[in-house]
Structures are given as structure tokens and as C-alpha cells.
């Protein structure tokens, strides 16, 4: 597959004037950005800047959060996410990986097979194929192929995080959201996952929230900077580090002289 040049791909996700409130409190405001197909889109920003809230708005988790209000518009493949008649179908297109690995209390196999099963795939042979493919893509297959029946929650933290990625991939997502995935993972595993992401980007669009600016620099084609609920700016990732950006706060943050 030929990868489009940076910035050349069609728009996958279009966000316009997005604002998020929890009750009366504003968590994020003024976000307008486009994520293009087959890019890794980085989001950086210190704690409490609204990064997780942004991801939650994309797959309509506001429906499950009392008091969470989302304004503005979010279009996935040109369709307003709030106009999907079936929110479950929307969420199946969006895989999510959390900061702390959430191995569901099911076997390794069932963790990965759950999403296909929810979609109605029952045939064991079909499921086997999906499970092996997703675990392989998450670089976990070799480690767990002999213990597919043991509990997913008993794997090591790093393995569980890759299991979470395999589970997200089992949805066959068009968009993959990663929220500070490396927070509980050792550096070696982090590097392995980063390699996986680079290969995945041929097929999937990835949004990578990270509090490691160097990780954004290693992976992201373009990066947005959020600060205390404010959308500061978005640009080519390298530009954020070489000073070709407009806002001095971005420069200060990536260079670690902040606050």
C-alpha cells in the first residue's frame, strides 16, 4: 500500500469548534482540527488539559457520563458522529486503548474474540483467525499462543496493554485512539508498541494522546497542543520542536520549561 505524503491524505476526522463541559465546568474549548487518513495524529498537553475528554467525545462516551456536554461538530468520514442512528456501530469503528491496561476478566482468547462475537460472529474457525491475526499484529501472539485460555487479567502489565491493543484491533477499527498507552509499560515494550503503530498506520488512522513529548516527536506526523482546556494550536510535529510554531507556550512546553 502506498502511503500518502504527510498532509496529502483525505480528511478522516473533522472537528470544528468543539467544546466540552462537565456540568457548569468547561474541560476543553475551541478545538478545530482535521485528522487525515493514515496519519498518526499526536495530542500533547500537561495533565488536566482535556485530552482524554477529547477522545471520549469522539466515540460519544458522553452518553455514558452524567453531566458531560459536547458542543460543536465532529465528522467521521464526513458524517456527524451525533447523527449516527446507531452509536454502537460508530464505536465499533473506533478502537480505544486506555492509559492503564484493562484486561477484561475473560480468557486471553475471549478478550480478543469478544468484539467479533458482539458483532455476531459465532463460527469458531472464523474467531480463531481473528484472534490470531489481532494478537500477531499486537506483537503478543508468540507470548500467549500457548495460554490462550488463561485469564487476560493475569498477564503482565505490558502484555495486558498489548492485549488491549489486540482487542481494539479486533473491532476492525478505522480509527484508533490511544490514551497515554505507555504510562504503565516498560520502555522496551513501549518501543515494540511504537513499531506496531508505525505499521498499523498503513491501514488505520491513529490519534495518539501522550504526555511524553518525545513520543509524539517519534511517532506523530502532526501534533496538536492542548493546555488547561484550551486548544492552543496544531501543526507538523517537527515544527513544534524546531520553533516554526506561532505560540510561544507550545515551544516552552515541548522544551520542558513550563510553569
Amino acid at each position: 500500500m502506498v502511503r500518502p505524503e504527510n498532509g496529502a491524505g483525505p480528511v478522516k476526522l473533522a472537528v470544528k469548534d468543539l467544546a466540552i463541559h462537565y456540568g457548569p465546568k468547561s474541560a476543553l474549548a475551541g478545538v478545530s482540527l482535521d485528522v487525515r487518513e493514515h496519519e498518526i495524529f499526536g495530542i500533547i498537553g500537561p495533565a488536566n488539559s482535556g485530552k482524554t475528554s477529547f477522545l471520549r467525545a469522539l466515540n460519544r462516551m458522553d452518553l455514558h457520563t452524567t453531566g458531560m456536554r459536547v458542543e460543536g461538530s465532529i465528522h467521521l468520514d464526513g458524517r456527524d458522529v451525533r447523527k449516527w442512528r446507531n452509536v454502537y456501530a460508530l464505536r465499533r469503528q473506533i478502537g480505544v486503548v486506555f492509559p492503564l491496561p484493562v484486561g477484561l476478566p475473560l480468557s486471553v482468547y475471549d478478550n480478543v474474540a469478544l468484539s467479533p462475537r458482539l458483532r455476531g460472529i459465532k463460527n469458531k474457525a472464523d474467531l480463531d483467525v481473528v484472534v490470531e491475526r489481532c494478537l500477531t499484529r499486537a506483537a503478543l501472539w508468540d507470548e500467549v499462543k500457548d495460554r490462550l485460555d488463561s485469564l487476560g487479567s493475569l498477564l503482565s502489565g505490558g502484555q495486558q496493554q498489548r492485549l488491549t491493543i489486540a482487542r481494539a484491533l479486533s473491532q476492525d477499527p478505522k480509527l484508533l485512539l490511544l490514551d497515554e498507552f505507555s504510562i504503565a509499560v516498560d520502555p522496551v515494550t513501549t518501543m515494540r508498541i511504537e513499531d506496531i503503530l508505525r505499521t498499523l498506520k498503513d491501514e488505520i488512522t491513529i490519534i495518539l494522546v501522550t504526555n511524553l513529548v518525545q513520543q509524539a516527536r517519534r511517532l506523530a506526523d502532526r501534533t496538536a497542543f492542548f493546555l488547561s482546556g484550551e486548544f492552543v494550536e496544531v501543526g507538523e510535529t517537527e515544527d513544534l520542536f524546531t520553533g516554526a510554531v506561532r505560540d510561544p507556550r507550545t515551544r516552552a512546553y515541548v522544551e520542558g520549561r513550563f510553569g
Partner: protein
Amino acid sequence: MFEATELNRKNQKTERLWRLLFLMMTVLLILPVLIILGVLIYHGGPMITIDFLFTEPTNGMTAGGILPALVGTVWLVAVALLVSVPIGIAAALYLSEYAADNWLTRSINLAIINLAGVPSIVHALFGVGAFVLFFRFGTSILAASLTLAIMTLPVVIVATRESLQAVPHAFREACWNMGASRWQTIRHVVLPNSVSGILTGVILEVSRTAGETAPIMFTGAAFFLPFLPQSVFDQTMAMSLHLFVISTQVPGVPENLPFGVALVLISMVLAMNALSIAFRMVLRGRKKW
């Protein structure tokens, strides 16, 4: 070398003191239970024979067995459970998994907790008014069981809700993010991991139901009725009421008879509790996070 300071030593002493105090309280708590059991077994144990369990009372309840009461209690508990368990679990699922966290839900939760504290005699009078008179079930197993069901519903709801809430929220979020509906999430992740707690709650409720006297006294339990019930519209004898009657209302009852009845009743309850503990241990062993 580390030397214990004055403060260290003092802390250690207080630590021992508290430990002793708590231990004493625990012993104090178990003691009455052990005494009750001991007395019951001592006086009632010799009463328990196959005949005692499987024949009817005779001679104005001063002799014979307890079969109708035993069977009646099983009927009452079974019908009450059939009503309260499905309703209770459904209500708990709604409150825990579906209802938005707003003032209405919170007041419903509060109401349920308070409902659990309503005295059983009040439930009894409600049962008379509602089931015996208004719905015209008469004094019958149905009316008595419905009264018991209403009385125990709050317990089932609270126990179920607590086991549901014990399943980490992150699991639900992970499922929802995958595109699972609320029901799929409940079915695949929440219920399988809370079923042990729910079962325990239900079984504890059974034992409570079996021992209640007031709610069934006016609604369906008979003083003396040496036949087995044929349908839910019959009256029946019950263990708890039978015990009350032969201990206080009938002259000339041999001294050991009430002990025997009480021993059977408490054994039923304890057997249920043992079952619930066994369940808990089996399912705990498979705890998954």
C-alpha cells in the same frame, strides 16, 4: 543498631491493647450463638428422627412430627423467592446499570434502604390489606409469600446492586468503547463477575424468609392444619409459627418438642448459609481480577 524509642514501645503497647479488645468483642459476639446452638442440640437433638420430620403433629400438637410445617415453610419460601428474585435483580440492574445518577435515582436508592428497615409487623398488616383483602387471595400461601417477597425485596436489591457495583467501572467502559450495548456489557462482563455476590444475597434472603413469623401469621399460615397444601391458594402450617404456637399457645407440650422444632428451623437456615458460603468460596477461587 536500631533502638526502640519510648514512643515505639508505647505504640506497641496500645497496639496490643486494641487487638485484645477487638478479640474480646468477637468472642462476645460468637458466644451467644454457640450457647443457643448448644442448648438446642442438647435438648432438641434427641427429638430429631425420621418420624419426627415426616409425620403430622398429633394429640393437639403435643406429640407427633412436623411434616406439614416443614413442607409449608418450603412452599412459602419458594413462592416468595420466585416473586422477589427476578423483580429484585431486574430492579437492581436498572438502578446500577441503566439509571442516570440524578436526584430521582438517589431518592429511590434511599427509599429502598429505608424499606429494608420497615418492621415486619407493618409488612404483615400491609399484606392483609393488599393481598388477603384487596386482591381477594384470602389467607393463603400466595398472600403470605407475596408479603414475604415484598419484605425481602429491598434486601435482594441492595445485595445485588452491591455485587454489581463491585465490578470495576473500567470493565464497563472498555466494553462500551468496543461498541457493546449496555445489555451486552451486562451479559458478557458484569453479570458473570457478580453472580457469586448475587447468589449469596439471595440465599441469605432465603434464610431470613424462612424464619419470619409476623408477616405470615395473618396472611396465610395456619395455627393447626394437619394436611399438606395442594396449591398456592391453600393455607399452610409453617415452622416459625408452629414453634411460636407450641411454645406459647398450647398447654401440655413436652418440654423437648419446641427445642426440636427450633433445631430443625435453625438447621434449615444454617444449611442455607453454609451453601452460600460454599458458593462464595468456589466462585471467589475463580476471581478474575
